[in-house]
């Protein structure tokens, strides 16, 4: 009887282990440093001044600390909800329609040559 009482309960063990792992994961995920910020900026095509970088690292770390609580919720077997409507619509008619002319207001502001949009040279091999 005594033996039974002191015997560790396997489920509790697993639960504790999962919790520790969850915490490590949490810690890893909420670490946002300058290096990660620079990667993110480059993926977003943004440049930040050193002052902005410093502030952004602080802000984003705070945000991550806030959202990281999401990892504590067990979601096994839950189907992600991506769209609030279940079924999308198809365009039934494969008929070209003349859409509204797009460049009526923009033509003077955006650089074009002979109807082409122009951007700085993209270096290609």
């Amino acid at each position: 009887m005594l033996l039974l009482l002191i015997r560790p309960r396997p489920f509790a063990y697993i639960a504790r282990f999962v919790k520790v792992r969850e915490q490590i994961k949490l810690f890893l995920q909420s670490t946002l440093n300058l290096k990660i910020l620079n990667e993110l900026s480059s993926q977003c095509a943004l440049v930040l001044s050193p002052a902005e970088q410093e502030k952004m690292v602080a802000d984003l770390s705070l945000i991550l600390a806030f959202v990281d609580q999401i990892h504590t919720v067990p979601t096994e077997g839950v189907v992600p909800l991506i769209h609030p409507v279940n079924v999308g619509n198809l365009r039934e008619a494969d008929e070209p329609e003349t859409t509204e002319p797009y460049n009526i207001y923009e033509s003077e502001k955006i650089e074009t040559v002979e109807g082409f949009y122009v951007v700085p040279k993209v270096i290609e091999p």
Partner: protein
Amino acid sequence: MKEVAPNWEAVIGLEVHVQLNTRSKLFSRASNKRTTTLPNQSAGLVDLAYPGTLPVLNRSALELAIRFGAAINSPIARVCSFERKNYFYPDLPKGYQISQNSQPIVGAGVFHLWLEDGRSKAVRISQVHLEEDAGKSIHDRLSNATVLDFNRAGTPLLEIVTEPDLRTPTEAVACFRQLRALVIWLDLCSGRLDEGAMRCDANVSLRTRGSKDYSTSVELKNLNSYKFLEKGLQYELERQATLLSNGNTVERETRSYNPASGRTESMRRKEKSEEYRFFPDPDLPPIPISEEFISRIRSSLPELPASMRDRFVEKYGLAPDIAYRLTLERSRAELFEATVKLCAAPHEAANWILGELTAIQKTQPSPPRKTSVSAKQLALLITRVKDGTISSNTGKELLRTLWETNLDIDEVIKTEDMSQISDSDQVELWTKTVIDENLELIPRLLKGEEKLYEFFIGSVMKKSRGKANPHLVRQSLERRMLKQCKDRSTEDD
């Protein structure tokens, strides 16, 4: 192709992009037909990613994708969903491409390749998915800037990805060629390589012969014609073989084939293990695909080239390579069958179609004004050659006339005075005249100079303006040669 190195073998997989020939674009109502060469004129607000615009999937494009999947007998997804592939590039208007990464519309399947030696090879297709084409960046129009044309943006693309089951550049070309034949057959795509309607990239590596390693290290781009595909792969395999035999390793990278230099070049654009941040497109909820929808498409499929090929061999006794060539194009195969139905001469029909008709086709301006002659015309032509009304040479001439016009064959034969002259007296007369005109050549003819024999036959034919029955001409000339021989031997005696 020369052996790369005896102990290495190539591992090649293809990624083939097929522009679907829908009337409007994949997600917008803008025209998908390039009726204008003016830049940015067939790009709508959606294609140009104007703020607030949204994509809606074109049903036709979905049907065409399923049609392809049904043709290669692959499983069709039960829902059609799209993901965003995020990256910045000037000709990518939204900053992401709508594509299918984790749920392709068509799953794994097999494409049976027919090889020249008559073998068939199973090439595994890993997936086929729908995505939108980007615009075009043009780098050489202005010296200091890149210009952009978004007419192509939003064109529906079917991307067909094969497993690296191809072992030689020749096999790779055969695969591209036969995939092209299939998509034209299914009426999915114009197949115009010169217009970029089909484009090809390859994943390529070398492995120790017999190894089971299917990993590929180099993605090779710009292989958009049979020639580029073959040359590009040949160059790349040799490059890799040289590296490996010198004890070097082949770097994982994307390279581009440069047709001018004949080399493959490392793409300077950094690929940096590209983080595309795929995620389901929130603008496009999944569209369920019912079994009934799929079976309706399946039942509307035409007979496929492979099955037709086997049937032609079995039913008409054609050689497999003849059957293969006949079934490269649907119009050709259909013309064959219809013709045979009318004239019951399969071998002749195959010869005419693959020989003269294909030759005429090749001389046509592109695109041709007319694709072929009718089965009725061809069958009658074959009959008239067979029954001796016209010579096969006349038949060839007649075929060209028929291509241009839509006349009745018998009428043409009559009005153009084309019918073969089988009047033996008339033929005798022409032969006699030719011999009389060339008496000095007779001794050499009798000694058996082959060329002179052909010259005499040709001269008689010329006299008849091509209409003498060549069979009769031969008979008549040989008779007269015998006579000459006899005459001369009596003289000698």
